[in-house]
């Protein structure tokens, strides 16, 4: 039974009712982090900060934005950009954050792959992280539609069209998603709803799940070492801080996090003030025109690699049309990373440079995704089409064939050694 006595301070009064002391311990001062990690482990806190920036800048954009095909373009490009005090600041912060958040997500993901942080009890961390990647992608796609420029319009047209490739229900599904026979007002208003309410809510829920899933297995470390967190925490609490392999999240680890965050924020605000153009496609400063396609359509940089997998297959194979193969490859590319913990058949948790062939695999994958990203923006003609094709095949082969094979060998060797 809880004890409610006369409290001597506001803190004590609250503590009796909300268990603040215990809560701080559980979430902060006795949440243990290994010492043996580097700046790459600060990406989570950077991501959290970027999400908060998106939320806050988004709320201010929302004060003047009008979700209506007749008004949207001017509400952004005239009202927000020219009339509202600091409207340009919110817009540039929002656009730049939406772009760099993906850079950080990719770094975060590849850190996880490099150090094997997706297995041995960390599968749920990985899966919830991938859910965040997918919901962020949907968030970025729906947000890109809102200014209702030419790129907004034609990206929406092409991406919603992709659902037409689903057998039997495809055509009807496209109309259902758009709420019209073409991308129209009903499409804008429903994606507006998704962008400003439903998806942010879902993202916040998944962020909660992501953090919670870290609780039991804890974060990995640079050597993939299995740490007895309870024993190490006892050492730290007993004052043997130098000997303990762990430090508390608050106030020790967070101070390192904040340093990395500080460096990142300088970079971020440099982009916001001096280099925001990369996040603002010039074609999108023409208002949407359903009767005129821009000569060259491409997605934002963070979708280019999967877009290139979609385009990579440009010739028919037997009964399969080029378009269907592309769609299937694109479908696989978008979900394949979910399966990472199972495609890796080895129990070894170690940094890639201690895993022999896996190390090579890792860098080939990274380079291949960079190639896909670069070629995703080039017109797919002549030699470019072939480079896109080989890079796409390589991508699928790396994940579906090479990874299981390499890691199976590794499992055998590890089994032999043990």
């Amino acid at each position: 039974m809880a004890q409610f006595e006369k409290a001597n301070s506001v803190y004590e009064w609250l503590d009796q009712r909300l268990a603040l002391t215990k809560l701080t311990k559980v979430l902060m001062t006795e949440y243990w982090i290994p010492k043996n990690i580097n700046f790459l482990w600060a990406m989570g806190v950077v991501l959290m900060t970027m999400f908060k920036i998106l939320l806050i800048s988004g709320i201010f954009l929302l004060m003047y934005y009008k979700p209506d095909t007749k008004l949207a373009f001017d509400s952004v490009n005239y009202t927000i950009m020219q009339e509202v005090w600091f409207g340009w600041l919110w817009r540039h912060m929002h656009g730049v954050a939406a772009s760099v958040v993906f850079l950080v997500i990719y770094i975060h993901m590849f850190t996880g792959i490099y150090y094997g942080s997706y297995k041995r009890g960390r599968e749920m961390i990985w899966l919830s992280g991938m859910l965040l990647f997918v919901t962020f992608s949907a968030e970025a796609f729906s947000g890109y539609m809102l200014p209702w420029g030419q790129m907004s319009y034609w990206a929406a047209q092409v991406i919603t069209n992709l659902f037409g490739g689903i057998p039997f229900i495809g055509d009807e599904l496209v109309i259902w998603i758009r709420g019209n026979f073409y991308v129209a007002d009903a499409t804008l208003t429903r994606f507006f709803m998704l962008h400003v309410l439903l998806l942010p809510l879902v993202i916040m829920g998944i962020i909660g799940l992501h953090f919670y899933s870290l609780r039991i297995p804890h974060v990995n470390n640079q050597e993939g070492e299995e740490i007895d967190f309870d024993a190490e925490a006892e050492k730290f609490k007993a004052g043997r801080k130098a000997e303990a392999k762990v430090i508390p999240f608050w106030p020790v680890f967070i101070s390192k996090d904040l340093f990395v965050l500080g460096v990142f924020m300088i970079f971020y605000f440099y982009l916001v003030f001096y280099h925001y153009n990369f996040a603002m496609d010039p074609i999108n400063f023409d208002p949407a025109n359903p009767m005129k396609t821009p000569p060259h359509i491409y997605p934002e940089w963070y979708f280019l690699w999967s877009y290139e997998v979609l385009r990579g297959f440009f010739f028919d194979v037997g009964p399969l049309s080029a378009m269907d193969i592309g769609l299937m490859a694109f479908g696989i590319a978008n979900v394949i990373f979910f399966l990472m913990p199972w495609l890796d058949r080895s129990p070894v948790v170690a940094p890639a440079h201690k895993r022999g062939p896996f190390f090579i695999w890792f860098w080939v994958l990274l380079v291949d995704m960079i190639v896909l990203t670069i070629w995703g923006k080039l017109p797919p003609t002549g030699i470019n089409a072939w480079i896109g094709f080989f890079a796409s095949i390589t991508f699928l082969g790396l994940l579906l064939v090479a990874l299981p094979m390499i890691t199976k060998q590794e499992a055998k060797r590890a089994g032999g050694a043990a």
Partner: protein
Amino acid sequence: MADQKRRDFIGMVFGGFAAAGGAAALYAMKRTWDPLPSVMAAGFTTVDLSPMKPGEFRTVTWRGKPIFILKKDHTDLKKCDDADVKVGEGDYLVRIGLCTHLGCIPAWEPGKQIFKCACHGGEFDACGANTFGPPPRPLDIPPFKIEGTKLVLGEEGPEYKKLVGKA
């Protein structure tokens, strides 16, 4: 035991009601996403073809999509019995002007007598057939009905059914 059965029964009744309510809610949500009746009703466009001259190319709008109309009689434009629409003496190509690859709008190039899609280089000939590049099939035929010299887009007439083999 009797008591347990009673509890199971109450549990099942509760579950049944909850499932029915859930299904009803899902149906309502699905319908809210459906195109509105006004959108469905606005799905017809009537075009009078009589003022068109041989070789003339027009784009009209139907359901927000561009519709290509090309008058081909009395010209050297390629004609195809199985692809053209005949209205009176006239011979027309009537197609949805969206590339069957990913939906860009191809441009009519009268010199080369092709539709050229700038997005990924697809080409279609004067019969709407895909002749080059990624498009997987010919330009789509919009549902139409012929009323005298007028073309009603959005309704499936006998000529349309014959053309797409649905008769």
